[in-house]
């Protein structure tokens, strides 16, 4: 083996990380040792997703997998010590801290810096840029200062990044303004028609837009910033964020005598190499053939090009894909190909639906057969298909493609050639994806993502992956089971609209056969949500899963565990004593649960009513530990006792648990309330979690422990209790109505078209006009709640079902026996069943 050569990478952003990954993947013989010299104090992170950092302020959520190169001896990542000088003669770089590092190949990936125009006052305190996690932390610190009324902020620059910044500021609770010098928002990506609609949609979302004007001056008066615009408008603000474009960081090249482009950027050829054959430049600092690219996909392409050359291959920078799609505050914006129709002879075909709020334009060749580019605003659902068709013949007349759904000749994935790029972030073609389905056996979107990396960066092509799966004949049926072709959400709407209250009627009118262990509990749950009396009333009893059928949790030996509700985890010593006495009397194993209550194990069917009677008499009720229903609202001790608490988390947790107890849902629902940002109640691992702030409550949704842990994301902030409860009412009822069977809130939001932004639009901004209905449904649930255990105790017919044997009610199940472990009863598991041989 030869001594490895040294590759030095200056900078560690997304593109640099991609380079290291690509080299390591191809360099099977460890021919390269890689030294990465990074300026930032943390490894490369998802800067494209920077705005999402506002949802929880957790840098770990932006982490790129493997970016610390743990366990890879060939890669050395040095943080916080960037390259300060290059000595090309000696092939050595010198870091800011003064270390020297020799190289055989040097890749400059120094990125770009925010451009701050020399406006008067641009360097005042309270004026920020928007590029790094540290920038956002600084903005947050400034935004968090208490002021009068709703705080206001100005974003200078109405491009893609400026609108992202406006969204972040809105999510922080500020009232954002955006000023753009060009005649419209996102002038580079959208045309005049699209910009007009975009402005209307963004304005409707509480962002004030000023276009066609510049920022004249920023002045400070005490704590306030006053900004004067070119058109005479004066704004009274709490902070200002510059997002007026970026400039390549090419200083290292300039100082070491390397050529830079006419408009900046380290000049490289199509193989991303500078005039010095040992020095390359990639990403936003590079000017490839004179052009600088400010988005990640071309940067990734450059990284792959350099990696291929370093590992013995050949590659040149491909025709870059500068297509853009983003969803801002629920508004789709996309542009692709020749969006501005600069190609000679090109034609523009526009479809503008002002009522529906969608603008679509296709740019086609002069014979209107070949697609050249386009702009989509308001509804970009066809983006992936259309982008992949750029440069190819259209399958239909452009006018009919743009017509609204139903009337037009929609472009299907079938129309795409195999070479069409589906995932532009990771360069995955349609052919590679269909190959993974047909040859490698990928039968789900998740497997395609793992196998091909498609959809793992920005995620915008994920819907296409589903369509390709279907096109390959992999069925992703929404059918509930063999008895119902409908999904759970559809059945919910059928039962709600028809007010059918019996399973037999549901299946005879809308299904077939006699039902099964899938559809029966689903219908039972829907009937329970819609308020059809006790869940063991009449025919409903035989529909329930065994846990619901016996209002307790079946354990592996056929016994049950019993969990009384302890709202918010608060309990008196007297009640604790009752639980202890019951456990002693019935010889039950006791364990504290993760939801701050007590589980009593080992009860036989016939013991359940006796146990409940003791508990109900002492003021307990069912804790619904057995149901697909609200489980617990966990809490920390809150401001009543805690030195750090800012709100009464226990009080709120109890209020919420009592409000939503008994709500039947597609899956279990868990919640938590923390009294301060220290988050001791682990609220962000819950389906809905609440964290106290100085001003009220922040509401997070879609968290999950379980097999696929996920942090809940911020839905709304600084809510008063009444507003908070109203939004949770809507959230839960919307979830209950529309989720699939056994779908927790996290995947429900993930699979929702438009995700969290859409959810926010529906339940916070009432974009569908259904909030009143959702609230009324929840009010009905709260009004009709009754303890299910008491319901059995008060009804002899229901009580009669709680017997061991229909012909010997007093005889215990001879099959159940216990042994002792750590001083408590645990099941004695039997071997092969004897009954079969008898």
């Amino acid at each position, binding site marked *: 083996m030869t001594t490895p050569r040294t590759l030095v990478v200056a900078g560690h952003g997304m593109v640099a990380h991609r380079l290291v990954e690509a080299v390591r993947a191809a360099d099977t013989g460890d021919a390269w040792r890689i030294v990465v010299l990074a300026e930032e104090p943390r490894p490369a992170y998802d800067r494209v997703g920077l705005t999402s950092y506002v949802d929880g302020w957790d840098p770990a959520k932006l982490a790129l997998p493997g970016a610390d190169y743990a366990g890879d001896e060939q890669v050395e990542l040095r943080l916080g010590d960037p390259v300060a000088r290059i000595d090309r003669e000696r092939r050595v770089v010198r870091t800011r801290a003064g270390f020297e590092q020799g190289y055989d190949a040097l890749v400059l990936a120094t990125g770009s810096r925010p451009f701050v125009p020399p406006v008067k006052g641009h360097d005042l305190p309270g004026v920020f840029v928007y590029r790094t996690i540290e920038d956002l932390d600084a903005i947050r610190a400034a935004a968090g200062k208490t002021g009068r009324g709703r705080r206001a902020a100005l974003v200078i620059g109405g491009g893609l990044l400026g609108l992202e910044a406006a969204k972040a500021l809105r999510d922080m609770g500020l009232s954002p303004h955006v000023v753009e010098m060009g005649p419209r928002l996102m002038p580079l990506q959208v045309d005049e028609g699209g910009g007009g609609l975009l402005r209307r949609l963004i304005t409707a979302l509480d962002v004030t837009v000023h276009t066609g004007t510049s920022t004249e001056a920023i002045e400070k008066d005490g704590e306030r910033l006053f900004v004067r615009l070119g058109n005479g408008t004066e704004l009274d603000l709490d902070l200002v964020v510059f997002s007026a474009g970026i400039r390549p960081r090419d200083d290292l090249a300039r100082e070491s005598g390397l050529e830079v482009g006419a408009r900046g950027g380290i000049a490289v050829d199509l193989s991303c190499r500078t005039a010095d054959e040992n020095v390359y430049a990639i990403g936003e600092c590079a000017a490839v053939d004179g052009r600088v690219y400010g988005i990640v996909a071309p940067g990734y392409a450059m990284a792959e090009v350099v990696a291929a050359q370093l590992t013995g291959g050949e590659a040149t920078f491909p025709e870059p894909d500068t297509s853009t799609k983003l969803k801002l505050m629920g508004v789709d914006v996309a542009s692709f190909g020749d969006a501005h129709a600069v190609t000679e002879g090109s034609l523009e075909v526009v479809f503008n639906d002002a009522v529906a709020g969608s603008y679509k334009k296709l740019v086609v060749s002069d014979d209107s057969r070949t697609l050249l580019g386009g702009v989509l605003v308001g509804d970009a659902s066809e983006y992936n298909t259309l982008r992949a068709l750029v440069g190819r013949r259209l399958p239909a007349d452009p006018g009919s493609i743009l017509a609204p759904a139903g009337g037009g000749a929609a472009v299907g994935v079938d129309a795409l050639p195999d070479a069409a790029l589906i995932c532009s972030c990771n360069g995955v073609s349609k052919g590679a994806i269909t190959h993974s389905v047909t040859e490698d056996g990928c039968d789900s979107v998740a497997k395609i993502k793992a196998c091909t990396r498609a959809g793992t960066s920005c995620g915008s092509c994920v819907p296409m992956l589903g369509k390709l799966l279907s096109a390959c004949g992999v069925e992703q049926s929404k059918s509930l089971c063999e008895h119902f072709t409908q999904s759970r959400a559809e059945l919910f709407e059928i039962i709600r609209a028809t007010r059918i209250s019996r399973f037999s009627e549901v299946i005879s009118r809308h299904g077939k056969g006699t039902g099964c262990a899938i559809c029966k509990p689903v219908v039972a749950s829907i009937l329970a949500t819609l308020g059809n009396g006790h869940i063991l009333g009449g025919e409903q009893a035989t529909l329930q899963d*065994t846990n619901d059928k016996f209002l307790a949790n079946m354990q592996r030996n056929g016994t049950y565990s019993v969990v009384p509700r302890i709202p918010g985890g608060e309990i008196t010593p007297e009640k604790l004593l009752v639980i202890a006495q019951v456990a002693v009397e019935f010889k039950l194993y006791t364990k504290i649960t993760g939801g701050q209550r007590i589980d009593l194990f080992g009860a036989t069917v016939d013991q359940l009513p006796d146990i409940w009677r003791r508990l109900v008499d002492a003021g307990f009720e069912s804790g619904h530990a057995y149901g697909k229903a609200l489980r617990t609202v966990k809490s920390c001790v809150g401001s009543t006792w805690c030195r750090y608490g800012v709100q009464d988390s226990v009080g709120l947790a109890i209020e919420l648990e009592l409000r939503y107890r008994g709500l039947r849902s597609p899956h279990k629902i868990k919640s938590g309330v923390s009294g301060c940002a220290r988050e001791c109640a682990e609220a962000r691992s819950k389906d809905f979690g609440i964290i106290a702030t100085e001003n009220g409550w922040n509401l997070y949704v879609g968290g999950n422990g379980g097999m696929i842990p996920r942090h809940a994301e911020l839905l709304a902030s600084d809510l008063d209790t009444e507003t908070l409860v109203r939004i949770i009412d809507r959230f839960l009822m919307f979830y209950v109505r529309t989720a699939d069977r056994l779908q927790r809130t996290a995947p429900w939001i993930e699979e929702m078209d438009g995700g969290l932004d859409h959810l926010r639009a529906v339940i916070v901004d009432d974009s569908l006009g259904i909030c009143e209905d959702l609230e009324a449904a929840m009010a009905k649930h709260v009004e009709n709640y009754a303890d299910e255990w008491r319901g059995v105790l008060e009804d002899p017919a229901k009580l009669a079902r709680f017997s061991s*044997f229909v012909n010997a009610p007093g005889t215990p199940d001879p099959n159940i026996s216990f042994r002792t472990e750590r001083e408590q009863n645990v099941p004695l598991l039997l071997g092969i069943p004897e009954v079969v041989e008898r």
Partner: protein
Amino acid sequence: MTLSVEEARRIWTAVCPVRDIPMSGGVAALLAGEVQVAIFRLPGDECHALSNLDPFSNAAVLARGIVGDVGGTPVVSSPIYTQRFDLRTGECLDDNTVRVTTYPVRVADGVVYVGSP
């Protein structure tokens, strides 16, 4: 005195009035010798009896499973790990090497009788 199954005439045990079994549901009954059976009632008072013991968990729970059908075959799903058993034959539809014992059932004058297997 113990008789082998072959030697004995079939013994019928009166278990309960048929109305005590929920429609499309089951109950557990205890036969002589601590034998546990699960008796299921389908529309038309068609009744079936299986061993109550779930062979996958060894818990006596099949009577507490959900009754339904697979392509028209009446089944009960085990409440522990959800395997389905044919109510008429005891065959497990999810593992054809497994079968639970079935018992003959008759309903006379509104009373359910279970016979020895």
